[in-house]
């Protein structure tokens, strides 16, 4: 292992990691929003929209992100929709993640709804008030383990961004290997930087899950 090579590459990887982090977390935030919205719409059986969102979930859950991104970035411009590579990253991650998050939230909403909706209704609350004040706050904490697992999954998925020519960690590693053949150094840095991105989330997930196991819901 050549330490000079490592220190030389470090800034390049650092920059690539910031890009991965930025797109990754914006994508995660979008995914949470889309997932919540989808879960609520499907739960309330909103006519038409419900079917649309169900189809959306099936499509995005059953196709690879790499293909989704390629389609957004390379194919859509041909019908006049031009999206920058970075926005493609947000959208791809947000839509893919939203389809997973919605399932996580939906099971949370269903569990809480079945035990709490009626007692909230009997106090004279409207359906909307019940959703906002009673069900969503609890469904959110109920869904945390699944949501954290999805966040880890999404942050890992960012590794395909180089396919739409974003200069992320994978792009950096492949590029440098191709140019200088410092394979060992390049791969080590790659692993280290992904650990920096993912290890904290994974640890946080374990801690949260352990804490939630002691919190009781319903009875």
């Amino acid at each position, binding site marked *: 292992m050549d330490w000079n090579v490592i220190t030389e590459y470090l800034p390049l990887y650092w920059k690539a990691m910031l890009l991965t982090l930025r797109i990754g977390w914006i994508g995660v935030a979008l995914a949470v929003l889309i997932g919540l919205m989808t879960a609520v719409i499907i739960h309330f059986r909103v006519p038409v929209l419900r079917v649309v969102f169900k189809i959306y979930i099936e499509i995005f859950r*059953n*196709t690879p992100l790499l293909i989704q991104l390629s389609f957004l970035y390379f194919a859509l411009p041909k*019908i006049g929709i031009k999206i920058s590579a970075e926005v493609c990253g947000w959208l791809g991650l947000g839509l893919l993640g939203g389809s997973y998050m919605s399932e996580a939230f939906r099971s949370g909403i269903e569990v809480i709804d079945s035990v709490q909706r009626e007692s909230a209704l009997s106090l004279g609350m409207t359906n909307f008030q019940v959703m906002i004040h009673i069900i969503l706050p609890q469904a959110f904490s109920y869904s945390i383990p699944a949501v954290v697992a999805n966040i880890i999954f999404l942050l890992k998925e960012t*590794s395909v961004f180089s396919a739409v020519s974003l200069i992320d960690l994978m792009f950096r590693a492949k590029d440098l290997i191709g140019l200088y053949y410092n394979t060992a150094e390049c*791969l080590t840095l790659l692993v280290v930087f992904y650990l920096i991105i993912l290890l904290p989330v994974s640890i946080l997930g374990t801690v949260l899950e352990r804490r939630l196991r002691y919190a009781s819901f319903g009875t």
Partner: protein
Amino acid sequence: MQALGLDVLFKGSNFLRLLEGLWKALGISLIAVALSIVLGILFGIVMTVRNPVVKAVCRVYLEIVRIMPQMVLLFLVFFGTTRVFGWNLNAEAASVIVFTFWGTAEMGDLVRGAVTGVPKHQYESAFALGMTKAQAYLTVIIPLAIRQLIPQSMNLITRMIKTTSLVMMIGVVEVLKVSQQIIEANRMSSPNAVFGLYLTVFILYFVACWPFSLLAKRLERKWSN
């Protein structure tokens, strides 16, 4: 048709080539799935062992797989082995190794979850009825565990098929790569081919994955009560 570039699809043997590409990806995932199921069941049983050393080793393996993107694992195996061991691994073999390494861990965790997820009172009532350990496992525990396991492994298979799309990034000529080649070859005659072809690839992957998802959902619902 022309505007959307779908015409290219039916030119010559293009569609057939796409299907061949898809088959390449599916073949890799099917081999990996088959290996992962067998090894995963073994790994899952090993994980239920109470020995702390065994437990720790399993845990580390599982965490590595959980944290590292499959792309990174592919790079490590594909580029790394050449460097460290001097092997000249081809991309397909590297892919099978990586997906099996990953799938075994995931499958193992599902098996562990299914076996330990059978409620304790099920064991107790089986024993209370005078069953031997073998009888209890064969007639009560394993059937119950399988009901939890099968829908989840269907979902894992979907994920493995989807992840196979990554092999293109280490140079396997699968369906996305084939479509890129076709697009390149028809750049002049049909500049919009990219739309039609990528749409087709999108649909092909969907068709490959959806049945497993549907089956998983169906079985989950059937066995939930």
